[in-house]
């Protein structure tokens, strides 16, 4: 169990750092979704299945959907984060 928990905690904190450090907002939203899903696994291990379901459905699903939709409204929805690729497309 301790190995499972350490892997999930490292994954969760890494994804949380990625949320702040990734320059592409779409990647940041995806990382936030990873944080929510890892957190829901931790809730299952903490014997809180109700909370785990809510976190997976609300945090991982609906929250990411809302973030993605508002990214669309902000005009920041660019999946091609690679600058070289984008320049090649522009040319």
């Amino acid at each position, binding site marked *: 169990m301790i190995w499972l928990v350490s892997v999930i905690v490292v994954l969760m904190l890494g994804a*949380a750092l990625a949320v*702040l450090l990734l320059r592409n907002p779409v990647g940041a939203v995806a990382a936030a979704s990873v944080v929510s899903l890892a957190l829901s696994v931790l809730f299952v291990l903490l014997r809180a*299945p109700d909370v785990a379901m809510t976190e997976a459905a609300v*945090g991982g699903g609906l929250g990411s959907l809302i973030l993605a939709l508002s990214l669309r409204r902000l005009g920041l929805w660019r999946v091609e984060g690679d600058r070289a690729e984008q320049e090649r497309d522009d040319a």
Partner: protein
Amino acid sequence: MMPAGLPFLFYAGAIGLLVIGISGIVLSRNLFRIILALALAEAGANLLLVLAGWHWGGSAPILGQGKALETMVDPVPQALVLTAIVIGVGIQALALALAVRAYRAYGTLDMRRLRNRMNRDIAAAAGIPAESSRDAPAGGRPTPPVPAAHRSGGGRA
């Protein structure tokens, strides 16, 4: 008996998430990134709350055949977190809608530019010349009135 490293791991996850979220809120300049960081801090606080109700070898608080009540974990923090998660996503949606409106009005999500443009608009509406920078030397612009108590060297007569 569980290994002793487990509490440290759980607390490190919860407090790490909380601290990463708060650092993101104060360090980030992009409104969208600030909203994401708020969600992270919220998740850390939720994990901390659920941790408060957990005990070694506990079982989920669902009654069934032959499950002892003594081994169940505390259901009250779980119910609190359940509502907190749903409220959190509502707040997130409202904050994002406000950010979308701010972007529509000012064309940027950067906090500093947003503040500059808002200050410029306020100055234009009030009919006074806009400050080029808050930290710029006063130069020609009038200094604000000094309170009477501080006028004569700050000493009390």
